[in-house]
């Protein structure tokens, strides 16, 4: 599916607004896990690297792409693992057990 420059810019702008509105509501309590989660989500760049490596268009792109997949995947896995570990620790003092 092709899209033109203008569509891309619209998508970017709307996503930025959604991002601002959603993230503004995150309590300062959770700012560290928020950062590690956005880091993990940012690792979505791995999809670009996967296609690059899979297409095998040149040796350079395969080598650089392979390193890129390693870097992004370690972010992806590490980011989710540590975010969940952190969030597990946040407990309320109330007696309610969920």
């Amino acid at each position, binding site marked *: *599916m092709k*899209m033109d*420059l203008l569509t*891309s810019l619209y*998508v970017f702008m709307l*996503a*930025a607004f*959604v*991002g*601002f509105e*959603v*993230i503004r509501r*995150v*309590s*300062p*309590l*959770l*700012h*560290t*896990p928020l*950062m*590690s*989660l*956005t*880091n993990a*989500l940012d*690792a*979505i*760049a791995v*999809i*670009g690297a*996967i*296609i690059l490596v*899979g*297409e*095998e268009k*040149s040796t350079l*792109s*395969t080598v*650089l792409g*392979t*390193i890129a997949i*390693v*870097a*992004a*995947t370690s*972010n*992806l*896995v*590490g980011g*989710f*693992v*540590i975010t*969940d*570990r952190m*969030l597990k*620790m946040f*407990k*309320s003092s*109330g007696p309610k057990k969920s």
Partner: protein
Amino acid sequence: MTAGTEQLIEVAYLAATALFILSLKWMSSPTTARRGVRAGEVGMLLAVGGTLLHHGIVDYKWIAVALVLGVIIGVPLGRVQMTAVPQRTALSHAFGALCVTLVGTSEFYLRAPDVPRFMMAVLSAEVILGSLTFTGSLMAAGKLQEILPQRPMTYKGQNVVNLGLLAVAIGLAIHLVFHPDHTRLFPAIVGIPLVFGVMMIVPIGGADMPTVISLLNSYAGLAASAMGFVLDSKLLIIAGALDGASGLILSVNMSKAMNRSFTNVLFGAFGQEQAAVSSAPQARSVRSATPEEAATILAAANKVVIVPGYGLAVAQAQHKVRELYDALTRRGVDVKFGIHPVAGRMPGHMNVLLAEADIPYDKLLDMDEINGDFPQTDVALVIGANDVTNPSARSDASSPIYGMPILDVDRARTVMVIKRSMAAGFAGIDNPLYYLDKTLMLFGDARSFVGSIVRELAGGQG
């Protein structure tokens, strides 16, 4: 491959996009946050799974090897100690930026010399942001891990040199936009920002790290978004924009909490004010107290606010603080924690450490929530924090931190400060709080001092 598969991939990407947004939305409260992580993981699985079906992929060997290696490196990075979270975060910004830079570089050489102007512009943005974030984050991680000196290193004309470097890189990028066949220039728009990233972090000291990490987070997101423009991927544009927005919000928060203007942050002009401070601390008298005296005062209090700072993290005192919290709560003392936005080395750092020690999160209050409570507070106990409690930020217009919002601990009836010595804080500024009549200095290591107070409290009870 069939058009059906194409559509399947697009649907997977669409679902992943929705899940990413929900994931961040659920982060707003600790009660739903773990659901947010699940949503993010499912979205990621869909996106990666969908990508593996892509028709252009002819060989899976290297993809498989790289994915496995990434998991092998990623798992230990997810299992680091909680005190190491700031440097881990910096390192993951570096990894993310590395990925974006490498993909951008490959894309350029695959497309050159016929690169349309717009494509060249976003490609340049991608590799410039990516490479400066890569080395900048590595430097930040090195400083946080204390492999590199934490003190800011400054020299004359630093900003001119740094901005000059960046200007050259941008100038070359603009030239490439119009003459993409000059491929020999491309390594320069990767290389110069790599140097700039190092130079940008050199003048930055430990206390500025929360702002810097947030800013690098934002750059990493924007670089990924630029990559989305290059690859024509809406999912990537959106995920990058979300990350960029998140980093930007956090850096604005942090800069407000340090009373720095946002342009000051954007241009990386950190750590300059310290140089101006040279006034020798006056020899004024302070009152100090023993753990026994401190325990007596705390036990007699109704309301105690504990103010943690980076010193608590350094001393690994969070578990002892938890024991103190338990001992006081058992006696019916109301104990809360007042947390300054820039306490520690990254946004929310103190909350994570205290949550690790099992302190309930509803006792952890933000600066704005707690400041009104100090006049009714019997004891404010400051552990390893300094500049964020300095009342001269409110009253002394000549102070380098004047105007910075602080925790008003001096409005409590009694202030106790656990501190190693009378040495000045990060900013090198004397803290008048220590010389107040109501202030008691508790000299010693945070962990062992809090431990001694806990022992005294236990002994006193029987």
